């Protein structure tokens, strides 16, 4: 085998020095000399890498292999096996390497990344997603090889069960159990599906994960196929994600040409192939039975369960469906073991969760945190707090299926149960920060508008009920709320939650019910005092002309309904009965003499 050239970085931080890093360097140089590699290997010293508990640290590039707690005696083996032979020394690799990988790229950005832990996104923003070599170099497809070499399908499933991994699509069903159900179904025509129909408005975790590291998802699916006995996998992805689709296509092609997909994968008896199917703009297709209908070429409408897809799914065959984030965790679970994985997170929720942090927050972006991190840590430590000195009002998780949590819930831990208890849901990972300028009635209206327009129309509660809820909310935001409206919303909401056919309908009222619960006074103000404290509901605004009006007449000319009166050079007046709150006068006044409140 041709000998490669490597760069070796040795941590030269105080802790590592104390732990013999200088001696290690000596031993390394000697070993290199022995293998005549001195000329071909560069040794660098770095400042503290921040992994003191694992020190001394030694990093080999390319490949980002991180060795921890190495001793001078280990150098011979590392040089012989890794630098001369190309194979990293598994026993010395820092197990959490993918967690610490980030340190290579985050110096100076500790605020944003400091509290994050990257498993799903371990390679995102690090490797070239269009080059399978990059993925292979970071131990890519090793988990698959491990499963095929030394694990039975049952052992793979047992490892997934042990990890405590739960579905990242929102509902949090235990992944291992789902695999087990599918594996236990008879028959050899089975399917695995990756649900990449990410549709929450404001959520883009899956897209980023695929665009940044498509092979991880592929590897997870191939392992899944091996575990449940499927020969075919389908990636169902939104047509609105052309780059992600393109990268998946490149990845699938590359994997095929490397014998990682297709007949007899890596020389084993296991054959498996993948196909991409495109969504076409229907949020409800994130629901698994609707997704199956869509893949089958039909209208994406859910059907009652049971039978569950694990029993009767695609083309009536047992089918395993997981979402992108879930699949991306699988190679890690298999490579590092379920036991290790389960050390991350809380009692009931293991591992990490990716969130798309957006809204009124300083650092918008994609964050991955261990379960158990608090909302406060995400909003303030990672997100950098609210910009413009504004006051925090709420954080919305779970998108159109979730809820709005006010300040008193900021110390809620991120895990399935805690979020549900607080009145929201984990969801697929949208996280919107809301400040005092956002009206809670309006935000509820925004979400129900979304679900209402995405309702498939099959079941009555969702089709008709969300429409009526939207009408009531629209009325309220337009100043035509009536006493009893809140109660009607609650009554409809509870019925829709309990009686709808699928998750879309069952969760559609959540944003409304949670804002009623936590911000009832805003609803009441809208209805009874015709007031919107955030100033967002235009129809509730009152425009008045202040004393500093110079009587230029600009507002009078601009008013489309002739509601402004006044003679030139004198203070003008707005006739409130005629005013339609269009805001034109406010826009055109050069003297800030129009107030809106």
């Amino acid at each position: 085998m041709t000998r490669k050239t490597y760069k070796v970085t040795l941590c030269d931080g105080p802790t590592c020095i104390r732990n013999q890093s200088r001696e290690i360097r000596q031993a390394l140089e000697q070993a290199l000399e022995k293998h005549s590699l001195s000329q071909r290997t560069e040794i660098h010293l770095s400042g503290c890498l921040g992994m003191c508990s694992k020190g001394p640290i030694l990093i080999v590039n390319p490949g980002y292999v991180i060795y921890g707690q190495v001793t001078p005696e280990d150098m011979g083996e590392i040089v012989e096996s890794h630098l001369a032979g190309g194979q990293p020394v598994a026993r010395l690799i820092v197990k959490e390497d993918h967690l610490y990988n980030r340190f290579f790229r985050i110096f100076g950005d500790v605020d944003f990344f400091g509290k994050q832990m990257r498993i799903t996104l371990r390679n995102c923003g690090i490797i070239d997603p269009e080059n399978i070599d990059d993925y292979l170099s970071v131990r890519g497809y090793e988990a698959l090889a491990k499963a095929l070499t030394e694990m039975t399908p049952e052992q793979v499933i047992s490892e997934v069960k042990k990890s405590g991994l739960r579905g990242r699509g929102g509902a949090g069903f235990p992944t291992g159990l789902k695999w087990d159900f599918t594996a236990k179904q008879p028959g050899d025509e089975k399917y695995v599906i990756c649900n990449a129909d990410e549709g929450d408005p404001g959520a883009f975790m899956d897209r980023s994960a695929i665009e940044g590291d498509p092979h991880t998802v592929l590897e997870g699916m191939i392992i899944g196929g091996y575990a449940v006995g499927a020969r075919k996998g389908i990636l169902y992805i939104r047509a609105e994600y052309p780059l992600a689709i393109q990268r998946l296509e490149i990845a699938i092609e590359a994997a095929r040409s490397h014998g990682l997909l297709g007949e007899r994968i890596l020389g084993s008896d296991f054959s498996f192939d993948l196909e991409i199917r495109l969504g076409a703009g229907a949020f409800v297709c994130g629901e698994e039975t609707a997704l199956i209908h869509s893949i089958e070429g039909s209208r994406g409408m859910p059907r009652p369960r049971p039978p569950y897809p694990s029993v009767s799914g695609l083309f009536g065959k047992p089918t395993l469906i997981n979402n992108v984030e879930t699949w991306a965790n699988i190679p890690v679970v298999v490579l590092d073991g379920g036991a290790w994985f389960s050390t991350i997170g809380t009692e009931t929720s293991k591992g990490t969760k990716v969130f798309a942090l957006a809204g009124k927050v300083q650092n918008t972006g994609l964050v991955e945190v261990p379960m158990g991190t608090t909302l406060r840590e995400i909003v303030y430590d990672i997100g950098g707090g609210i910009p413009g000195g504004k006051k925090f009002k709420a954080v919305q998780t779970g998108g159109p299926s979730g809820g709005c949590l006010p300040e008193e819930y900021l110390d809620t831990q991120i895990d399935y149960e805690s979020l549900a208890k607080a009145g929201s849901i984990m969801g697929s990972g949208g996280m919107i920060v809301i400040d005092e300028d956002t009206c809670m009635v309006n935000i509820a209206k925004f979400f129900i508008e979304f679900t209402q327009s995405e309702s498939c129309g099959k079941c009555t509660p969702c089709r008709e009920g969300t429409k009526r809820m939207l009408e009531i909310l629209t009325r309220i935001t337009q100043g035509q709320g009536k006493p009893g409206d809140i109660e009607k919303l609650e009554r409809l909401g509870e019925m829709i939650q309990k009686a709808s056919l699928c998750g879309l309908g069952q969760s559609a009222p959540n944003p409304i019910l949670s804002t009623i619960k936590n911000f009832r006074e805003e609803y009441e103000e809208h209805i009874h005092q015709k007031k919107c404290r955030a100033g967002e509901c235009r129809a509730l605004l009152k425009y008045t002309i202040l004393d500093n009006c110079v009587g230029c007449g600009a507002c009078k000319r601009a008013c489309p309904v002739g509601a402004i009166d006044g003679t030139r050079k004198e203070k003008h007046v707005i006739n409130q009965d005629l005013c339609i709150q269009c805001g034109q006068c406010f826009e055109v006044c050069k003297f800030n003499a129009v107030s809106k409140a």
Partner: protein
Amino acid sequence: MTETEQKKMEALREYMHAVKDQPHSESNLIGVLHKVQQIYGYLPREVMDEAAEILEIPTAHIWGVATFYHYFNLEPIGKHVVSVCMGTACYVKGAQGVLDALKKELGVDIGGTTADKLFTLQEARCLGACGIAPVIMVDDKIYGELDTKKTIDIINRYRKADAAETEA
């Protein structure tokens, strides 16, 4: 039909004939409709009829599918498609204002095409550019950090470019 369209249509026919004998061939319907839209920008009825015949799928079923998914256009669209992102991040940062401005400027509602066939206005869910919200996408170019004025400027730029093109 232009020559390129014809060629593409020929390729599509071949594709349909190829998938028709595969197991679960009807499951390729949505993929076929995507290809049709790539060629024509919308789903012409004659082409749906043809797909029905080749794939042996009832036309009513194809119609049901075509109308269910919002990605599919049932009418010819304008030269440029203007999509306003209505994802939460954009919404919170003022996408509604941008949309209203566009509606007013173009004189069409969502889904509408201007009389001069230059623009079709659409709503998008999340274009994935939350960092520069609010955004619009004209064809496949994204414009971010918009307000009413910037939005109208963009539209006018396209109008100007088109006028120049017509003159030349």
